[in-house]
C-alpha cells in the first residue's frame, strides 16, 4: 500500500471511497502542463507500476474478481469481447478496473456517464481523449470535434481509433527494434471504458443511445478495440425492445461481513482495539446496511465513544478480556441508539454543521427531512419564513373545506366539542381517509389559501400578547404596517428554491399555480416548537 503512495499524480481518479484503502488515488491533475501537447502515453493510467499482488492485497475480498478480469483482458494484443462489470455501490468496480490498467500499462479511454451527462458530452469526451486533445485557454476550451449525432460519432470514432491504433503499432514496433522487450509494453489494444453506465437509461434519447453503445463493438468491427461497461445495476435492467447481444458479465457482489471487517481494519492505528470494537459493533450494523461507505461513517463516532474510558484515546493499548467487557458495557447503550440515526454528523464543529445542513437542504429535500429528526432545529430561518412553512404544511394537510372552522377567531377549539360518538361507518370512513393520506401524501393548494392561513396564524400568534415572545409581536407589527405581502412572496420563493415547498405547474382548470409542502411532520413540529406555536390545535386529524 505504501508503495503505491506515489508522488506522481495519476491522470485519472475514481471518486474517493470513504475507506482509506483507495487513498492512494490522489485528486486528478494533468501531469504535463496544459500547453504541452498530449502524447499517446497520456492514455495510460499513469503513476508507478503496481504489481498484481499489491492490487489484490489493497482490495480485500476481491481477488476472484481481479483474477477474472485479468484473465478476460488476456495477454498483450489479444482481442476482447465487450465486458459488462456490475455490482452495487462502493464495491470497487471502477477502482479495480483503473488499478488493473495501471498494472497492465495499457491505454484506455475512460468516460463516466455521470460527468458526461448527455450523449453529446459523452461523444465529445471520448473523442477528445482519443484525439489527444486537451481543452485549454489557447483553444478557448473547445472540443476536438463537434459531434451531436450518433452517426457522426461513429465516423469520427472510427477515424480516431485507427489513428490511435496505428500510433500504438508504430510505438510497439519501435520498441521491438530497440530490443526493449517486456518492460513498458503497451500493446496495440485500446480500451474504451464507460463508467456509471446505468445512468444512460435515464437520458433523453436512451432508447437509441443504449443499443448504439451495446452494439458499438459490432459496428466498429475493429479487433483492437475493447469495450468495458461499468454499471451498478445488473444486465437485466437494460432490456429494451431493441435487443442486443449481451456483453460478458462480471459480477462484483457486495462485501461480506468478513470483508467489511478487513476493510475497516485497514489503516487503523490500534488494530487489536479496533478489532475488539468491531466484534461488538459490526454485527448489528450489518443487519441494516452492508455498504462500506455508510458503515464507516456510522462507526467512526461510535469508536470514539468506545475509546472514551481509555486514558490516551486508545493509542497503544492492548485490550485484555476484562477491559473488553468493561468497554462493551460502556458502548452497549450507544450502539442501540446510534442504530436508529445513521445520518448523524457529530464530529464537525457546530458552525460547520449548520452551514453544511443549509446547503444540504437546498440540494436534497428528502435527505434533509431525516437529518432534521435528530435533536433540535439546527438551522436558522426567519420567523416569518417559519410561519410560512407552518401554514404551507397546514394547507397541504388539512382539507380546504375545514379552513373556515379551524381558523375562526377561537382557533378551532370548539371543533372537538361537536364531535359525536363515532358510528361504525364513520370509523370505516376515517380509516379510509387515513389510508388515503398515507398513500397520496400532502395535497396541493393555491397561493391565496396559503396567504389566508398565514395571515390567520400570524394574527393568532400576536393576539395572546405574551411578554416573552417579543419576536412575534415585532412580526405582528410588521404585518400591520403592510409590508407583509411583498415580503411573504419573497420568502415563499426562497422556500420553493430550498425545496421546502414544491411549486407545481399551473392547474389546467383553475389556471393558478398550485403549491405543495414537502416537509415532514416532525420538522414542522420542531419549527412550531421554536415559535411556541400550538400546531396541534390547527391540524385536522380525521
Amino acid at each position, binding site marked *: 500500500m505504501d508503495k503505491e503512495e506515489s508522488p506522481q499524480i495519476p491522470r485519472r481518479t475514481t471518486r474517493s471511497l470513504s475507506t482509506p484503502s483507495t487513498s492512494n488515488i490522489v485528486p486528478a491533475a494533468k501531469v504535463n502542463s496544459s500547453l504541452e501537447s498530449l502524447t499517446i502515453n497520456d492514455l495510460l493510467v499513469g503513476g508507478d507500476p503496481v504489481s498484481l499482488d499489491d492490487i489484490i492485497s489493497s482490495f480485500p475480498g476481491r481477488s476472484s474478481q481481479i483474477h*477474472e478480469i485479468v*484473465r*478476460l483482458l*488476456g*495477454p498483450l*494484443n*489479444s*482481442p*476482447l*469481447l465487450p465486458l459488462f462489470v456490475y455490482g*452495487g455501490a462502493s464495491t470497487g468496480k471502477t477502482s479495480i478496473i483503473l488499478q488493473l490498467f495501471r498494472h497492465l500499462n495499457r491505454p484506455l479511454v475512460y468516460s463516466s456517464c455521470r460527468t458526461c451527462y448527455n450523449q453529446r458530452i459523452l461523444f465529445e469526451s471520448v473523442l477528445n481523449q482519443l484525439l489527444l486533445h486537451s481543452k485549454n485557454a489557447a483553444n478557448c476550451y473547445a472540443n476536438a470535434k463537434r459531434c451531436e*449525432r*450518433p*452517426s457522426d460519432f*461513429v*465516423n469520427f470514432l472510427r477515424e480516431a481509433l485507427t489513428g490511435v491504433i496505428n500510433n500504438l503499432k508504430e510505438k510497439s514496433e519501435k520498441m521491438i527494434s530497440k530490443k526493449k522487450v517486456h518492460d513498458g509494453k503497451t500493446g496495440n489494444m485500446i480500451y474504451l471504458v464507460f463508467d456509471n453506465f446505468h445512468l444512460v437509461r435515464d437520458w433523453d434519447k436512451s432508447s*437509441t443511445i443504449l*443499443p*448504439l453503445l451495446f*452494439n458499438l463493438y*459490432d*459496428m466498429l*468491427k475493429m*479487433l483492437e478495440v475493447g469495450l468495458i461497461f461499468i454499471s*451498478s*445495476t*445488473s*444486465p*437485466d*435492467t437494460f432490456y429494451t425492445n431493441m*435487443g*442486443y*447481444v449481451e456483453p*460478458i*458479465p462480471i*459480477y462484483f*457482489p457486495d462485501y461480506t461481513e468478513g470483508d467489511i471487517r478487513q476493510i475497516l481494519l485497514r489503516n487503523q492505528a490500534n488494530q487489536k482495539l479496533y478489532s475488539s470494537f468491531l466484534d461488538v459493533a459490526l454485527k448489528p450494523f*450489518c*443487519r*441494516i*446496511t*452492508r*455498504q462500506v461507505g*455508510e458503515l464507516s461513517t456510522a462507526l467512526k463516532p461510535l469508536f470514539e465513544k468506545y475509546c472514551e474510558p481509555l486514558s490516551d484515546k486508545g493509542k497503544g493499548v492492548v485490550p485484555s478480556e476484562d477491559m473488553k467487557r468493561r468497554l462493551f458495557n460502556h458502548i452497549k447503550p450507544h450502539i442501540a441508539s446510534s*442504530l*436508529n*440515526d*445513521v*445520518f448523524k454528523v457529530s464530529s464537525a464543529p457546530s458552525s460547520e454543521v449548520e452551514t453544511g445542513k443549509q446547503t444540504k437542504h437546498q440540494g436534497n429535500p*428528502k435527505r434533509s427531512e*431525516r437529518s432534521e429528526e435528530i435533536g433540535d432545529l439546527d438551522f436558522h430561518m426567519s420567523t416569518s419564513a417559519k410561519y410560512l412553512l407552518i401554514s404551507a404544511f397546514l394547507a397541504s394537510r388539512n382539507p380546504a373545506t375545514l379552513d373556515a372552522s379551524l381558523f375562526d377567531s377561537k382557533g378551532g377549539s370548539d371543533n372537538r366539542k361537536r364531535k359525536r360518538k363515532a358510528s361504525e361507518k364513520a370509523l370505516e370512513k376515517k380509516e379510509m381517509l387515513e389510508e388515503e393520506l*398515507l*398513500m*397520496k*401524501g*400532502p395535497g396541493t393548494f393555491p397561493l391565496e389559501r396559503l396567504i389566508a392561513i398565514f395571515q390567520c396564524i400570524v394574527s393568532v400568534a400576536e393576539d395572546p400578547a405574551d411578554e416573552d415572545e417579543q419576536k412575534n409581536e415585532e412580526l405582528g407589527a410588521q404585518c400591520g404596517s403592510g409590508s407583509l405581502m411583498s415580503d411573504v412572496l419573497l420568502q415563499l420563493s426562497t422556500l420553493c428554491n430550498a425545496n421546502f415547498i*414544491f411549486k*407545481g405547474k399551473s392547474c389546467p382548470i383553475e389556471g393558478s399555480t398550485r403549491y*405543495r409542502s*414537502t416537509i415532514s411532520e416532525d420538522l414542522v413540529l420542531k419549527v412550531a416548537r421554536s415559535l411556541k406555536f400550538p400546531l396541534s390545535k390547527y391540524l385536522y386529524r380525521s
Partner: protein
Amino acid sequence: MEGENALNLLRSRICDTGFIFKDSSDTNYSKLKFMISTSVAEACNNSILLLGPRGSGKLAVLDLVLQDLLIQYPDSISVVRLNGLLHCDDISAFKEIARQLCMEHQLLFSKAASFDDNSQFMVAVLKECGLAHKTVIFILDEFDLFAQGKQRLLYSLLDAMQSVSSQAVVLGISCRLDADQLLEKRVRSRFSHRKLLFLPPSIEDSQRLLVHMLTLPIDSSLPYDYAVEFNKKVQNIIEDKRFKEIFNKLLNFDSSVKHLLKFLFYAVSHMDLQTGFLSRENFETAFTNIQRQPKLECLKNCSVLELYILVSMKRLEVKEKSLCNFNAVMKEYKNIHDSFQTSDYYARNVCLRAFEHLLHRELLCFTDNRGHSLSVEFRPVKLLISSAELHQGLKAYQSCPAILQKLVERDG
C-alpha cells in the same frame, strides 16, 4: 509462451466474425452470393431481406459474400452501408449516403449540403452508375428502424430503382421477422419480397463450429507438437460426456452463434497459460459464470432490514393492495413486528434509507415517472421480484431470519 500465442490466436478467432462463418456449409451464403452476383452480372435491380435473430451471422455472411464479389467484380460494385441505429432519420441517412458515395467516387463531399441536395445527388449518382454498368449495393442494417416514420429514405431508394437505367441492390438486415410488414404500401409495392432466413445452428452444426473454432492450425507459427497435442486435448474434451451435457444445456438456453462465442471466449480466456492447454473445468466455469441470475444475486446483497422491507411489500402485494408506497410498507413492517416481536425493528429514517437502497438495486421501482413533486415516501412503488424468486433467495440467504421465510412460505 506458446500457450499465450495460442490464446491470442483463439481469442482473435472468436472476435473475428469473418472466420466463424468462413467454412460453414451455409446454404444462405451460396443463395445470397447467387442472388447478388446475378444482379450485378445481369445489371438488374434487386432487393433482399436478411432476417434472423440477433447474433445469427447475417451481416457476417453478407460481408463474406461481398468480399468475394469485390474480388470477382472489382470495378462494378460500390457499397453503401447504413445502420438504423445511426441513420434512422432521413436527413442523416441521405447525408451518409452522399458521404459514402463521394468517398467511393472521389468526389468532394459538402457537409453543408441540404437534405434535398443530398437526395438529388443520390438519384443522379445512381443514374450515372447505371449508365456505367456499376451496381450500388445498399446495406441497411437494423432495417426495421428505417421503417419508422415516413419511410422517405426507403421510398426514394426503391423508387429510384424503378427506372430502367439504374442498377442497385438493397439489402435489408433485421432481427424482426415481420420486417416487411412494417413497410408502407407504396414502399412495399416497390419491394421485391425476397427473404433469406437465418436460423440458429442445429446441435450438430454448433458442434462442428466448436471444433472449427478450437482446433489449432498445424502449419503455422505454433510448434507442430504443441498444436497436435492441443488439438487432441480439445477433441477429448468435446467427446467427454460431461462436457456434452454442459454444451446441450447451453444450447437449450440460447443456441445462437453469438451466445456460443461468448461461452467460448470465457472458457478460452480461462485457459491455464502454464500448461497451455484447455481443460474441461474451463468450460464448466464459463458455463456457470455466463448464466447469471441477477435478481438472486441482488437478494444476497441485501441486509436483513432490506429483506424485511421486501417481505412486507410482498405481503402487501398478496393482499392485493392497488397502490403501495413507503408509508404502506412501513405500516406492514410494523404489523409484522407487532405480531411476531422481531428483534429487527428500526426507526423510520433508517428504514427509508434501506428502502432507497432497494430502489438503487432495482428490486423496487416507482410506478409513476413524473411524480417528482412528491417525496419518496409517498410515491407509489412496485416490486420487481417474483415471489418464487424471493422465496428461493431467502432460502439461499445465510443468516435470514426464520420468521421471514415462514411469512413468505405462508403467503405462497
